[in-house]
């Protein structure tokens, strides 16, 4: 945003912002009055008064800003509103269509006037004046006397709306991003300070060792002293004295160090709490209510209904559901498109609806519901539903499929076709929605946000679109992957599956390297080759390596890397000039430890991978080696507990490959339930989990007679002595640190315990 150097410029910006607000409010208010036909007179009066007040305030603001054309329009519109409010307070004339048209036109014109102040408004003003029986003053009178004329009385409109407006401030998105960055740095610094604590603890241990040494020397010193009495050596006396003083010194330093460690630990813990709270608040600040993009739809529904000769009513719910403002921005256009589409194609003409036994007006329900870390936006109508046959015909007509293929598709697959680029079932191109640039673009917008869209339909009954988007874009869930000495991050939402494999399991199909995963044969590539990095020499045929699967429509690619580290949430940062666009890279992020990782672009990776299947053979010449003799693994049962699906799947694949039977649970409580039903031989559990964490689970398991001796392995990303001690105190048998563990560690550790 350019620096606003003059006060005038700043005021101009403020006016523009206020203008937008007032127009939004006016639209909502007008839609309310117009929409529900069966309003009581009280409601009508309240609504009209609210509209009048908004226009009045707009007039004042325009006057202060010197925008006289806007001022005049607002004045005339206010007159038209006042004309309806009867002389007897509490009564009002119901507005007719001409009145609504003029008022809507006034709102539109005011917006245009802000950009083009010279626009001709004479026709509009004439129309507004025509709605006012008694002649108004040609020039708007100064605000003071106008206020005296129309004394605004308290209305039934919820005062809460005005109050929240006064209690809020506008902040630029840039400032919020900066705040987010600083908050991230705060967290990183906190972690660094926590490391210092570990070092101080080391010092404390050193001092304790020193103290023990001195204690050991006491008997020697005592003997020397006794001998001293007889020989009276000055040197011995001096040395003994120094020894005494030194031991006391060590004691004193050790004491102070202990106190320091205690205080430091407490301060760091407090710092961590504050840093965490700030981080959460900053992310929350980016949230805005869904109503921000829902409200303008009211106007749209009205306009499109008019244009198409349909009668469609909008019902909104969940308008107060919060979403990241970037997400709201991205969804604005797709939502408008879906609404247009629905009214144009979905809702039948009033006569047809009546013939079908439905109400003459169609209902469009739009709602926003939070679901965990996502928000579900549903666009539902009671129209004619999607015409599956028409979809099939269009697909064939547009050569998307052959007639034979189209004949084989089941209904859900046919419905998926509407998301295909260039698809539209309308024969002609209607101005509104027939261009066929519709649902594929909607899906693209949604996917860009890391969300997905699905549709259900029932012929003659209606259609329902469900859009699921993440709650916040500030952070993204990624999978950390290590390959040839560097760590990369890949957005979790783009990964279909992960797993491990050995060269022995890689096959050749159509001359390409492939891997059989979940019954599908997928092409296999090296991450290092796709990224054009130098890779170290090929490793032995029985080395385990990890892969992740990137899907693209029906196809998918398996990408090989050295190992998968963990799943985590990161704040994504753009790279910036001169790196405007780098292949295979979307941005970078700073890990909690302060290390910078590159975030890879899954779409680019897939494109390159599919093109690059003839990559350098890292696996040869060991490719065709006959697999070594398989030792018979013990068929023991393992319970894997972790709240991350990715981690559970990863650990499961490691353990299953080693020959174990695996059952899973999402948190401690669930794990206990599973234990009750299924006998297991060992538990592998994460520590940070909702409802019941790893320590509590361990304690609970030990408490029970049946499982007192059941081996428990705690796996976590944190490496701190306290956790290890806590784990041991609770009764765990082993402790593995995720970031560092070689995946063989897990198998070996379990092997040792069984």
């Amino acid at each position, binding site marked *: 945003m350019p620096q606003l150097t003059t006060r005038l410029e700043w005021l101009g910006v403020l006016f523009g912002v206020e203008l937008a607000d007032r127009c939004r409010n006016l639209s909502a208010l007008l839609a309310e009055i117009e929409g529900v036909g069966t309003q009581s007179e009280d409601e009508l009066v309240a609504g009209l008064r609210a509209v009048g007040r908004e226009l009045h305030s707009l007039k004042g603001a325009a006057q202060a800003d010197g925008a006289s054309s806007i001022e005049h329009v607002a004045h005339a519109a206010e007159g038209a509103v006042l004309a309806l409010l009867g002389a007897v307070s509490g009564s009002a004339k119901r507005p007719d269509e001409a009145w609504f048209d003029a008022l809507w036109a006034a709102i539109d014109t005011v917006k245009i006037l802000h950009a083009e102040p010279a626009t001709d408004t004479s026709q509009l003003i004439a129309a507004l004046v025509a709605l006012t029986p008694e002649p108004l003053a040609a020039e708007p009178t100064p605000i003071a006397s106008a206020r005296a004329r129309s004394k605004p009385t308290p209305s039934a409109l919820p005062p809460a709306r005005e109050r929240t407006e006064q209690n809020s401030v506008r902040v630029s998105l840039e400032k919020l991003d900066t705040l987010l*960055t*600083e908050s*991230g*740095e705060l967290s990183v610094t906190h972690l660094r300070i926590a490391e210092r604590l570990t070092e101080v603890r080391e010092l404390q241990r050193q001092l304790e060792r020193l103290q023990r040494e001195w204690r050991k020397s006491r008997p020697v010193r005592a003997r020397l002293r006794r001998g001293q009495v007889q020989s009276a050596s000055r040197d011995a006396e001096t040395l003994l004295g120094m020894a005494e003083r030194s031991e006391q010194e060590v004691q004193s330093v050790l004491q102070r160090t202990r106190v320091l460690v205690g205080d430091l630990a407490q301060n760091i813990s407090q710092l961590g709490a504050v840093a965490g709270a700030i981080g959460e608040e900053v992310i929350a600040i980016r949230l805005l209510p869904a109503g921000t993009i829902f409200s303008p739809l009211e106007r749209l529904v009205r306009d499109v209904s008019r244009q198409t000769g349909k009668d469609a009513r909008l019902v909104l719910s969940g308008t107060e559901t919060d979403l990241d403002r970037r997400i709201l921005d991205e969804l604005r256009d797709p939502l408008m498109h879906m609404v247009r589409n629905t009214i144009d194609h979905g809702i039948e003409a009033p006569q047809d609806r009546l013939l079908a036994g439905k109400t003459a007006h169609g209902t469009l329900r739009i709602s926003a519901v939070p679901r965990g870390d996502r928000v579900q936006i549903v666009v539902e109508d009671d129209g004619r539903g999607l015409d599956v046959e028409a979809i099939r015909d269009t697909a064939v007509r547009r050569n998307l499929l052959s007639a034979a293929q189209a004949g084989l598709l089941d209904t859900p697959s046919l419905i998926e076709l509407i998301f295909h680029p260039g698809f539209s079932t309308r024969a002609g191109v209607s101005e509104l929605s027939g261009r066929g640039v519709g649902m594929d673009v909607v899906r693209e917008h949604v996917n860009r946000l890391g969300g997905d869209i699905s549709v259900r339909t029932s012929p003659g009954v209606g259609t329902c679109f469900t859009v699921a988007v993440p709650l916040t874009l500030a952070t993204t869930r990624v999978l950390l992957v290590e390959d040839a000495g*560097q760590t990369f991050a890949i957005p979790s939402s783009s990964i279909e599956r992960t797993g491990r494999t050995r060269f022995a399991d890689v096959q050749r199909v159509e001359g390409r390297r492939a891997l059989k995963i979940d019954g599908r044969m997928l092409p296999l590539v090296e991450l290092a080759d796709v*990224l*054009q*990095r130098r890779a170290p020499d090929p490793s032995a045929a029985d080395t385990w390596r990890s892969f992740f699967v990137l899907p693209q429509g029906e196809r998918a690619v398996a990408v090989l890397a050295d190992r998968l580290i963990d799943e985590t949430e990161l704040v994504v*940062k*753009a*790279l*910036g*000039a*001169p*790196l*405007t*666009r*780098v*292949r*295979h*890279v979307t*941005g*970078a992020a*700073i890990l909690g430890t*302060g*290390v*910078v*990782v*590159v975030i890879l672009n899954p779409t*680019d990776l897939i*494109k*390159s991978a599919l093109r690059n299947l003839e990559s350098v053979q890292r696996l040869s010449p060991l490719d065709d080696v006959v697999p070594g003799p398989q030792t018979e693994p013990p068929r023991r049962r393992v319970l894997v507990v972790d709240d991350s699906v990715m981690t559970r799947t990863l650990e499961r694949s490691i353990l299953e490959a080693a020959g174990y039977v695996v059952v899973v649970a999402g948190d401690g409580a669930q794990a206990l339930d599973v234990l009750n039903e299924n006998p297991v031989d060992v538990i592998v559990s994460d520590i940070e989990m909702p409802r019941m964490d790893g320590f509590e689970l361990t304690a609970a398991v030990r408490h029970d007679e049946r499982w007192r001796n059941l081996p428990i392995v705690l796996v976590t990303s944190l490496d701190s002595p306290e956790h290890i001690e806590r784990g041991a105190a609770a009764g765990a048998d082993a402790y593995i640190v995720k970031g560092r563990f070689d995946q063989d560690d897990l198998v070996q550790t379990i092997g040792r315990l069984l």
Partner: protein
Amino acid sequence: MTLPVCDPAVEAVLKLRAEQLAKLTAASDASEEIEVIVCRLGTEHYAVESRHLRAVQWANGITPVPCTPSYVIGIVSVRGEIVTLLDLAAMIGLTSAPAATSNSLARPVLLLGLAGQRSGLVVDEVLGVQRLKLDRLQPSLSGREFARGVGPDNTVLLDLEHLFGGGRFNISDEV
């Protein structure tokens, strides 16, 4: 110590003469003077205008970025912001200086303050700040646009705006 009292007429002449002399020296110093940071690349000295720089820092722990040309050493975090580190020697075509790799120990970085750039130039050593008189510059030996000239002690003055202008080092690739 008190100054000798002067005859006002004499004083007036002296004052006039002093003013004229002052004008002369001012004229010879009127040539433009700029403040530069001098750094070493290999065995040569280079200068860049300090007004083009945001800061001078140390960088270690550089993360390499795949699919970038060799003059892009990698990225680092500067107080939470991602900054791209470029090899100045490679950018101006110096082959004598050893190529900076991301494995190098802490290297000095000149953080650029040019509009729209979030990058820094890695050099071998930062030697200090100097004031350079533009009229004492000899023409550059290579005749390249971004080399404005050679200073008195063989320091080459680089024009960073020219170097980055035209987006020569901009990377914008699609797959």
